[in-house]
């Protein structure tokens, strides 16, 4: 579904990604693990269209996504739930969700999508009119995921969803992700928390200094001493 080859990207003159190869097949839940500064976020943003790559290619199903911008990505069905959530703080839950569904394909199904999301995250329904900025980290994460879902993604990308969340909220969030993947949504998950992300995914990649250094089935990666090494013993 998603095919990335030789991706080179960065900010201005600073190159972060030095040739990344990665693929995600339909229906999978793939994990991308790496420490701070390894290039996870840059990769996520480049796939989503926020950053224009300087080399390599991103192909999603039939469409070429490299350097075409966010609108193209969202239209094709690639939606990013960014690091730090980035909810719109001075708008209500409902407004945030409505904004998720602005592009034409999603707009037609907005009402139905909204219902589905409130179903998936009952807490959001409770806080429908609350300002997003006043919610807890976990609630914001749910909102951010919900907002991403409103855009009717074929591939949902998440950048560090467990960051800053209480353990309980992390469990809830991952449960939701598991459920969504079970219903058929393809997910690419970037995390610092190796144990968690490899536990919920079927396949994984390890990124270090802008390059993929390991890949394989999640179960294998967990046991692989090389993974441990890439994390300086943080497993």
């Amino acid at each position: 579904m998603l095919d990335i080859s030789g991706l080179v990207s960065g900010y201005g003159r600073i190159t972060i990604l030095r040739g990344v190869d990665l693929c995600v097949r339909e229906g999978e839940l793939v994990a991308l693990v790496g420490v701070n500064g390894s290039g996870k976020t840059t990769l996520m943003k480049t796939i989503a269209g926020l950053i224009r790559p300087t080399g390599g290619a991103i192909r999603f199903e039939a469409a070429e996504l490299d350097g075409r911008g966010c609108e193209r990505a969202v239209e094709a069905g690639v939606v990013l739930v960014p690091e730090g959530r980035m909810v719109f703080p001075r708008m209500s839950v409902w407004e945030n969700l409505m904004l998720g569904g602005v592009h034409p394909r999603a707009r037609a199904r907005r009402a139905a999508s909204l219902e589905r999301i409130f179903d998936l995250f009952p807490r959001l329904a409770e806080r429908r009119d609350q300002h997003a900025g006043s919610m807890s980290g976990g609630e914001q994460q749910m909102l951010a995921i919900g907002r991403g879902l409103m855009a009717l993604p074929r591939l949902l990308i998440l950048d560090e969803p467990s960051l800053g969340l209480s353990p309980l909220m992390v469990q809830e969030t991952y449960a939701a992700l598991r459920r969504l993947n079970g219903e058929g949504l393809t997910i690419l998950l970037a995390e610092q928390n190796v144990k968690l992300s490899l536990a919920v995914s079927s396949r994984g990649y390890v990124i270090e200094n802008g390059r993929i250094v390991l890949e394989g089935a999640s179960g294998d990666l967990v046991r692989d001493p090389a993974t441990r090494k890439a994390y300086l013993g943080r497993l």
Partner: protein
Amino acid sequence: MSGEVLLQAAVQGLQMGAIYALIALSMTLIFSVGGLLNFAHGDFLALAMYGSFILYAALKVDAYVAAPFMFLLFLGLGILLFRRLVQPVLAAGVLAGAQLTLGLVFVEQNLILVLFGGDYHTVPTVLSNRNLVIAPLVMPWVLVVGSAAAATLAAVLYVVLMRSDFGRQVRAVTQNRDAAALMGIRIDRIQALAFGLGIGLLGLTGPMIVSQFTLSPTMGLDLTLVALIVMVIGGIGNFLGSMIGGLIIGVAESLGSLLYGGTVGAMIPYGLLIVVLLFRPRGLLGER
């Protein structure tokens, strides 16, 4: 100084204040969405007023009738200018954008000078020289209508921003541009529309208030400065703040002129600006 005279001046100040508030709101819209400080804002308003002057002088079209046409014209003008001129310059930074608007001040002021000469002009309408009397107040109809129109437009703008999809997208871009982009929102399109709307509002406001002003080529800069002051005092990006700020400035200017003379009255807004910038830099109601 009788209470009646003070009351009269205060009411007049409130009415002018509503107009100032609307100008400030349109300026805030442009600033919040694109980061552009439009020094030429008042000059666009002046152009709109001169536009209605021309329509009146040449075609005997009453200013109030001209208003909707001016709105559409200026909306289109705004979008065109943004796409062709402002957006490319903004790529070099917001400072460059502000400098561009300084250049536009030059252009527009002298465009007016060339087309209309340096003489003062006035534009009479059907309501000129007639007063609404609600004892003990004697209010010129043009001011009543002008301020009512300004208040109404402000309310309409509020509804658009808060309730419509477009308004939501505009606010999203203001609050987090990257997140808005990730939703598939076309940032450049929203910016162009917001800019166009801001200018369009000026096109609509101009004819509505033209008959209570004396037109001169340099009036634009004064209007820009007042709008700037209101915007800052109320808190940049704060809708309610701009409304209240406008009313405060309007009343302060009016009462100040009455009690201490025209020059002091003109100085008060600047004094207030300095005080607010130093002691309440986020504005009286805080930024949004």
